[in-house]
């Protein structure tokens, strides 16, 4: 009998193997975050034009005097080396400070403060619905592969992918809220009110994870170990849940992580439809007003959210990885 690959082959066994993997993933996430922060900062710092002029223009000073330009450059620290400016910004960001709004001159963190939590709730609810709906539909489609339910689910997921989230949101308001009297048209930022907008968000992003899960499950159902299990009298459902599903979790979680990016972007639109008091409308206003510190901060937060979602997907995959259980 061979020792096999994976955790059992690792010095110190499964626990150490897992610890090493988790540490590695965390380190990768941190490095990715650092790289993303550099990219975000560079994009804004080196956008076409003079940053001081941009800041003054955002406040309505279209033709500043040399004195005004010099003063603004000093305020923005443009005289310092690029590396110094980046690290100043990074240290501030780590402490929750993202500079001041060009328009209001208030700290960006203050402006974001009350709006962040509702957006996080909405995104979390959207993610939950996406995972649940994609998981259930993928499973049902795989169980009834190439039959009517599978065809119906594939059609529905295509429709969901093709329908913008704001259309879904308007549909939900008209038919669920107004006609059926369920839920609220105007969200208050709380968890209960986040359900319907979360559904709108989740529906728009579930197509790819659902298809990936379906295919992975079908691959599992057609595998040799499934054939062995079937020959021993296991039902199709048991094979699906006990054997195919654990192996399909990894690609499914990765598909979820990728879809999370579009989901995070979709919160902006859904917030507008449901009058949600989150970051979405503020982002739109800031883009229109060229309030770059605010746009930069929100971009960084969105990037960080996506990296965290990917990290979570990696860690979940680890938990379901057969190698972690000593099987090759």
């Amino acid at each position: 009998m061979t020792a096999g690959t994976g955790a059992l082959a690792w010095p110190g066994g499964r626990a150490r193997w897992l610890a090493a993997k988790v540490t590695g993933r965390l380190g990768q996430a941190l490095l990715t975050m650092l790289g993303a922060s550099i990219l975000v900062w560079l994009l804004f710092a080196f956008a076409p034009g003079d940053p001081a002029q941009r800041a003054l223009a955002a406040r309505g000073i279209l033709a500043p005097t040399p004195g005004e330009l010099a003063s603004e450059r000093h305020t923005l620290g443009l005289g310092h080396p690029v590396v110094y400016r980046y690290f100043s910004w990074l240290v501030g960001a780590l402490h929750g400070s993202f500079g001041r709004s060009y328009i209001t001159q208030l700290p960006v963190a203050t402006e974001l403060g009350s709006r962040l939590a509702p957006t996080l709730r909405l995104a979390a609810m959207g993610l939950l619905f996406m995972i649940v709906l994609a998981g259930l539909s993928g499973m049902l489609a795989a169980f009834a592969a190439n039959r009517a339910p599978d065809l119906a689910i594939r059609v529905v997921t295509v429709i969901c992918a093709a329908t913008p989230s704001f259309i879904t949101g308007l549909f939900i308001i008209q038919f669920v809220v107004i006609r059926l009297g369920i839920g609220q048209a105007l969200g208050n930022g709380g968890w209960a009110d986040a359900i319907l907008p979360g559904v709108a968000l989740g529906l728009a992003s579930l197509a790819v994870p659902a298809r990936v899960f379906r295919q992975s499950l079908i691959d599992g159902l057609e595998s040799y170990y499934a054939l062995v299990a079937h020959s021993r009298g296991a039902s199709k459902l048991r094979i699906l849940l006990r054997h195919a599903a654990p192996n399909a979790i990894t690609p499914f979680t990765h598909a979820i992580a990728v879809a999370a990016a579009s989901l995070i972007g979709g919160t902006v639109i859904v917030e507008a439809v449901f009058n949600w008091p989150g970051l979405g409308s503020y982002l739109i206003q800031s883009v229109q007003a060229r309030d770059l510190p605010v746009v930069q901060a929100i971009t960084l937060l969105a990037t960080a959210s996506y990296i965290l979602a990917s990290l979570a997907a990696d860690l979940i995959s680890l938990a379901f990885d057969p190698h972690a259980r000593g099987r090759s």
Partner: protein
Amino acid sequence: MLQVSIRRLRRQKLCLSLIAAAALFCAACDGTSANAQQSSSGPATFNIGATFLPTFIDPAKGIDAIFSFAQALTRVNAQGQVVPVLLVKLPQQQATSKWLLTLRPRITFQDGRALNAKTLVAAMTREMRLSPAAQADLPGAFFTVAGPLSVTVHTRGLVRLLPYDLADPAFDVYDVSAIAGAPNGDCGWAGRKAFTAAYEIATCTANSMTLVPYAKYWQGGPKLKKIQITLVSDPLAKVDGIEAGQLDMADSANEAAIKDAIRGRSNVQLKLSPVPLSLTRVYLNVTRPPMNDVMVRRAVLQALDYQALGTAFTSNVGQPGRGILPTGYPGAVANQKYDPAAASKLLTADGWRMANGTRTKGGKQLALTLLIYNERPALKQLAVAMQSELSAVGIKVSIQAQPFSYSMYNTTPWDLTLYNDYSVGPDGVPDSYLSTYLGSTGSENFGHIHDPALDRMLAQLVAAPDQATRNRLLTQIQNYVVLTKAYQSVVLYQKDGALVTSSWGCYVPDPDAYQYAEWNWNISRCG
């Protein structure tokens, strides 16, 4: 064979389930809103969707959204007449510059303290010290105790319309001791129980405000158990909120987008005021080059096609502005003229030469910043139209949108701005209101006008002894502001609009509703 039969049976079961589900769904689609039916049976909370929440609760800072948590000594009713509120009768003029105010007995603040001469003088003294609006209404005035419930107002010279001035929210009455030590910030006075009105502010956040009844209100126990005010800026969200039964009323609804959206919708009505209560004003920032040049300002005002701006570009929700007072108002002068040829001539005479579509002078382009605020999406259309019209005479305009609270009350530089406002002052007459936005010390003098000649005319207007003198002065002021100095103009007058559910179908926005005053007095379902 058995497997085929089972599969057929399963298919039949699935079809039947789908048919049953469809039938249930159609049963729910009976054309009326389930929530609407629920709201017509009488919820205890009155839900309002507001475009703005009060930027400040402190009257000295200027309450710009009024939800009847405060009361003044007088008010102007729907017929334009001033009537007493906290006073037992209208102010009595005792001498040229002396008026006697007599309070109603047994009125208490929401904190239980009595409203008497001492507490009234404390509040009015604070207002005169801190409120630019109060200073503009009654320049140099002060209040003294004349008896337990009597107060004397000492004015600087004759103030003929003092009873109207006291209706201004700048003179809302509050308990000064209750606000001592209140935190700074927009909601600092929430929970302080400082006012006399039927509903007190229980909670206040950036997005909502809750008012609860004051049980010992002097006009009897309020009927509503709660008033919930939610910030809803998006026009279509207002419609959805009303139709879903989440809102009973939404303000600022006279917009093209809303009119289009409510066609065919059940349980949503748009109620318009009988007269134009709102306007959209163009402020010119007279301290900033090139707007400090009167020739440029005149050219700007003459380059605007008020007819088009007030009709086509605003989908006929109102009337074009013809002057800075509403058409038909006594003393109103229609002096705003669209004359792009004259505008071009003025600019050329002033040395602005046309070069590649934009005028230049001394190497500098004639480029202006037009400021609008996000909470009024309709201003964007107007701004784009103005940009086009000014471009036709060689003026380059860039449009900038900001949150309202930072567009006006900030030092952000701009050259032109569009501002939604009321067409007459809260006291029902334009006299003191003209001082508010044209006077050197006016709280809404966003154009930074500092014109002693204009200040003198405004002071004379306030003290005008008769209607004929008043009309003469009003004409003089309007021509000076629009034609001579080109300080401001009005693009659009429009009726106030409120979206309501059918159970509030009897509601009519009117000058009384300017202060949403009916919420003060035992408001109840009217439909």
